[in-house]
């Protein structure tokens, strides 16, 4: 397993795509915080007073951490769907999956190594997002509050932050598994990206539709991935800018639902891959 994991990390590290995706993450984080800051400070801003006030608080510590992780989650899902789908789909396209399986034979181990490599990459991505966001938030807090007071950073807060960090990575992982599933099913990058991003965006529309419905269909979003992923993050530290929303499942509910999705996706990936005939 260690050898295969090392191979996967080497392949990810040597790919230009990895570094481009990282650059996109950094650029997105910077632009998001800069534009948010400008909309708060600009007198000609179109935001309502309530939104203005919520965003102003969100750009300052300690609530800034919720915003940072929420933004990291949003962009991280898209970037890592692309990476995960490429990591699987390209292997079919290049014929390298046959090259590796034809000399190792252990299909489950091969796929497990990819999953573990993507867990490591997800943790790194969230860590980088958190680091960049923290630096930017020092600036926004300083500008909006006249200074940074670190008194809130108690051991209990650090524990919460670690938990939030884990949840952010965990929710991204569910989408990674979804992308891996589609890429394995369709044996292509396009299938992986199209399937997972398609689900991600369609779900956002469906949640809006079902939230306005009545009866049992109103509860459907409670069993969808994105709704639970967002809930898990929002319930972590403080509802902050999302505080007005009470229509979200509990942390326990979201965790259980997402774990079930993750296990089902992983099981289906391994089942499919073990049964596939590969081209020699």
């Amino acid at each position: 397993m260690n050898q295969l994991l090392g191979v996967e990390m080497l392949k990810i590290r040597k790919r230009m795509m990895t570094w481009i995706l990282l650059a996109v993450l950094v650029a997105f984080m910077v632009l998001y915080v800069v534009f948010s800051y400008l909309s708060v400070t600009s007198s000609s801003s179109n935001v309502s007073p309530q939104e203005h006030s919520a965003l102003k608080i969100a750009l300052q510590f300690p609530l800034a951490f919720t915003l940072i992780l929420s933004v990291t989650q949003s962009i991280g899902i898209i970037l890592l769907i692309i990476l995960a789908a490429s990591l699987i789909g390209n292997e079919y396209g290049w014929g390298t999956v046959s090259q590796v399986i034809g000399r190792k034979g252990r299909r489950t181990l091969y796929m497990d190594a990819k999953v573990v490599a993507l867990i490591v990459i997800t943790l790194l991505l969230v860590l980088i997002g958190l680091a960049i966001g923290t630096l930017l938030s020092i600036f926004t807090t300083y500008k909006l509050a006249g200074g940074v007071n670190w008194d809130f950073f108690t051991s209990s807060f650090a524990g919460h932050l670690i938990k939030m960090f884990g949840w952010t990575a965990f929710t991204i992982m569910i989408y990674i598994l979804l992308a891996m599933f589609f890429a394995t099913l369709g044996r292509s990058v396009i299938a992986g990206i199209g399937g997972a991003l398609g689900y991600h965006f369609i779900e956002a529309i469906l949640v809006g539709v079902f939230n306005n419905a009545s009866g049992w269909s109103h509860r459907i979003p409670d069993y969808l991935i994105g709704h639970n992923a967002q809930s898990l993050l929002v319930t972590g530290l403080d509802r902050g800018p999302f505080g007005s929303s009470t229509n979200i499942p509990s942390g326990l509910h979201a965790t259980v639902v997402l774990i079930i999705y993750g296990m089902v996706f992983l099981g289906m990936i391994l089942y499919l891959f073990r049964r596939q005939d590969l081209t020699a």
Partner: protein
Amino acid sequence: MKISNNTDEVVVKTENLTKKFGNLVAVNELNLKIHRGEIFGFLGPNGSGKTTTIGMLIGLIRPTAGRIEIFGQDIMESLTTILPRIGVVMEKPGLYPYLSGSDNLLVLARVSGGVNHKRIGEVLELVGLTSRADDKFQTYSMGMKQRLAIAAALLSDPEFIILDEPTNGLDPSGMKEVRELIKSLGNQGKTMFLNSHLLHEVEQVCDHLAIVKQGKVIAQGETSHLLRRGGALQLRVTDTEKAISILKSTEWISSVTREDDSIQVDVPLERAADISALLAKNNIFLSEMKARESTLETFFLEVTGG
């Protein structure tokens, strides 16, 4: 890798190996036997199941029925212990375009396990790619890609090497180099399985061969024996007309044709003595008898009906 010299040892044995894709029977009750040290040619028209057979030999494709034994072990039970002893050059090189030649080999060496850094240099040297080792695979020419794929197959110094169209995309000198490499590996006692549509290539390097058509073996054996079997005899006799009449009425002779004052008889060459005896019995005497061995091309076209 120390290789046993026991040429009686069966390295590959398939029994009624069958693969169906839906209603299509790609491989149909295939029975192959390859002994240690053989350079085995695997021939067949396009779509005859050759690449599917290779896929099944290395566990990429699951057989619908039948059995494969490699090194005396069933591959369904012992795949992970068998594969490190096999090297495969696939039809499509199957390497990472964004990695350099040496990084590609490094990746595959780590996957295989037990391959040291020195060996990567050795195989690069062997295929003549040392000077381009640090260039990205995507910048290689088709021939260089194929040579790197051969280097990858040799990384773990395997006992049994499968080559699926190894000279694809190579220029004539590249083809010659690969042929020489195959022969030299054969001389080292390695067992080789060569799938190629280039008949003269197979004829030049393979000592044994099998021809498949629609997933079934239609001819198998020693190359020289098969070519003799598909050969012809050219005769000059004392009474040409009478000889033609007698030979045409003989059951085990497939065809008799007159060529000026000589006769061409399509018959396995080992039956030359029987022909001589048959004619003598009828008071016809030979003034000349020449064996004309079939080429692999004519033999192939004859047995495949192409």
